[in-house]
């Protein structure tokens, strides 16, 4: 039997004393070690939240951009090139151009000019007509031969260079029509049905999806037939240049390029749409940043609060445990005065008497540190995020902190037990033996 065995035997003899000390130091170490784990778990949660938020926003932004791309394509007349004598105010009022220009203006831009900044060039003849076969309903008739292939977009063209492989605006084959959605609904027309227009028979190839624009009351047909039917051979009213501009700034340059080939045409810029798109993107980004900042600030505040609490609670718990252990040891020494007197009478040194109590305090400290550490760590994780507590248990564990706990707790216990242990060493055996 050495001193440690002796201490162990006393511990199992006076279990309450030991357990009471153990519980107090365990609780203190629970608070002590819960604090950093809690803060880590909070940080981790914040990171995850921010990351998720960022991802969601990125997804939203991409979708937003995609929406704009589709809108720009469908309605997306970046530029409208109009006949020299077109009255823009009347155009606004009427909704359709009233003047025409030669059809070869379009090929001059697309083929001869081959302007690099113009991608999709679509000549259109547009005119309001009454549809005699449908009770004289007013429609906007639009005729187009489809996109004119431009040499600089060679890789998007067929081998002979005469057509697009997949045009963004498909042409309308002769003998077919496409009809806006409002019109189709009003006249009860269905895709696939045959119908007549200005004495000619057509197949209704497609009802165009609703757009909330004049497109919804338009009828699209092949340009050649429309020119013949309305006696406007070789004439068009608009050249649409689609998807050719990415930045509002470069619009001026494009206008200049066009004027080089067609000096007297009128160019209507749809720059507002481009601006809207840019603005919308900026707004979305701003909203995102504000949300992120607010989230970050909120989390920082929470973090600071927890830190302040931890900074107060851990020392308070340690102090309380230290005091409690001090009184437990004081009591333990008082209970064991007789025993100490005998040991001293039998020749044990003052130092060894001190060690009996210090070893006991170290055992309490080590056991309490281990118990408290794992308990504190677990509780912190469960407190912050119960669902992933088990998953993160190991990840957020810091062995260095366990080591620190295994040093700090016994140190605290030694400190608390020191005075009582000293008292035990100084017990006068003669007084003890006389008292008995």
């Amino acid at each position, binding site marked *: 039997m050495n001193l440690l065995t*002796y201490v162990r*035997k006393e511990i199992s*003899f006076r279990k309450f004393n030991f357990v009471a000390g153990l519980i107090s130091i365990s609780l203190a170490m629970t608070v002590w070690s819960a604090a950093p784990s809690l803060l880590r778990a909070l940080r981790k949660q914040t990171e995850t939240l921010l990351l998720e938020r960022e991802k969601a926003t990125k997804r939203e932004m991409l979708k937003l951009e995609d929406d704009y791309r589709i809108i720009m394509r469908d309605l997306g007349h970046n530029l409208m090139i109009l006949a020299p004598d077109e009255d823009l105010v009347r155009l606004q009022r009427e909704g359709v151009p009233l003047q025409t220009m030669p059809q070869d203006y379009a090929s001059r831009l697309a083929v001869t000019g081959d302007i690099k900044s113009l991608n999709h060039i679509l000549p259109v003849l547009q005119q309001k007509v009454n549809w005699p076969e449908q009770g004289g309903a007013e429609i906007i008739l639009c005729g187009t031969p489809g996109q004119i292939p431009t040499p600089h977009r060679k890789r998007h063209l067929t081998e002979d260079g005469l057509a697009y492989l997949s045009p963004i605006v498909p042409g309308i084959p002769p003998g077919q029509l496409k009809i806006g959605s409002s019109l189709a609904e009003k006249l009860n027309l269905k895709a696939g049905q045959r119908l007549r227009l200005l004495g000619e028979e057509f197949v209704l190839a497609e009802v165009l999806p609703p757009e909330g624009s004049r497109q919804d009351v338009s009828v699209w047909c092949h340009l050649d037939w429309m020119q013949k039917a309305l006696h406007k051979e070789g004439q068009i009213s608009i050249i649409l240049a689609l998807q050719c501009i990415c930045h509002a700034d470069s619009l001026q340059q494009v206008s200049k390029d066009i004027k080089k080939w067609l000096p007297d045409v009128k160019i209507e810029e749809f720059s507002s749409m481009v601006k809207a798109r840019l603005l919308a993107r900026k707004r979305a980004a701003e909203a995102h940043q504000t949300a992120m900042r607010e989230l970050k600030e909120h989390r920082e505040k929470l973090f600071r609060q927890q830190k302040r609490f931890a900074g107060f609670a851990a020392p308070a718990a340690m102090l309380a445990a230290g005091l409690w252990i001090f009184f437990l040891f004081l009591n333990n020494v008082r209970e064991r005065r007789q025993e100490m007197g005998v*040991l001293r009478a039998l020749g044990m040194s003052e130092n060894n008497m001190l060690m009996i109590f210090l070893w006991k305090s170290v055992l309490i400290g080590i056991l309490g540190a281990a118990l408290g550490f794992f308990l504190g760590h677990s509780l912190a994780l469960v407190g912050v995020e119960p669902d992933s507590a088990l998953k993160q248990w190991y990840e957020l564990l810091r062995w260095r902190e366990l080591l620190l706990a295994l040093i700090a707790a016994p140190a605290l216990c030694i400190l608390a037990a020191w005075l009582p242990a000293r008292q035990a060493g100084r017990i006068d055996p*003669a007084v003890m*033996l006389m008292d*008995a």
Partner: protein
Amino acid sequence: MTNNAETILRLSALSKTYTPAGRAPVEALSAVDLELRRGDMQVITGPSGSGKSTLLLCAGALMRPSSGQVIMQGSDLYELGSEERAEWRAKHIGFVFQQFHLIPFLDISDNILVATLPGGASTEQRQRAEMLIERFGLVERRGNPVAELSVGERQRVALARALLMQPALLLADEPTGNLDEDNAAIVLQAMRDFSEQGGAVLLVTHNKQLENPRSKRLHKGHFVK
């Protein structure tokens, strides 16, 4: 006088006056002389309060006398520092008390071996403990906690503990005070054996039955016989 080499303990002009705070001093011992040699078993009787325990504690290096000397095997015990005195007690003096003073959470064998702390017992010491357990008829009770022992058995354990380190001097304060006749006889016989094997025993008691022709009587701190 006697041969110095034979002398184990000599008390000369030993006095002890207690000075309790706020009360009159009590002179418990006044100028007591005593010499114990190898093989002596000195019985000292006296009524309660006559200073028996005081004498024993002073002789046992546990309580500094007010004046006078305690010389054991040539060393003046109170010239030593308190840690040296403790070491001296461990090596050379065995104690037996009326109240046994066993350690409640140790079994018989650990109680006997308690003086080997902090390092623990050597093989030789363990063998000696076994021998003592056998000699005092404690074999069957060896693993029992001391609370389960009879008083006689307890005093036998205390005696074994006192004898473990093979001291030169055995000090006993009313060792039979709580015992029945049979157990008292066993304890007294063990002490007689110890002195016959070359040790010295100082036994204090108020029991006049233990008086013998060589015993002394203490009265108010003086030897009256």
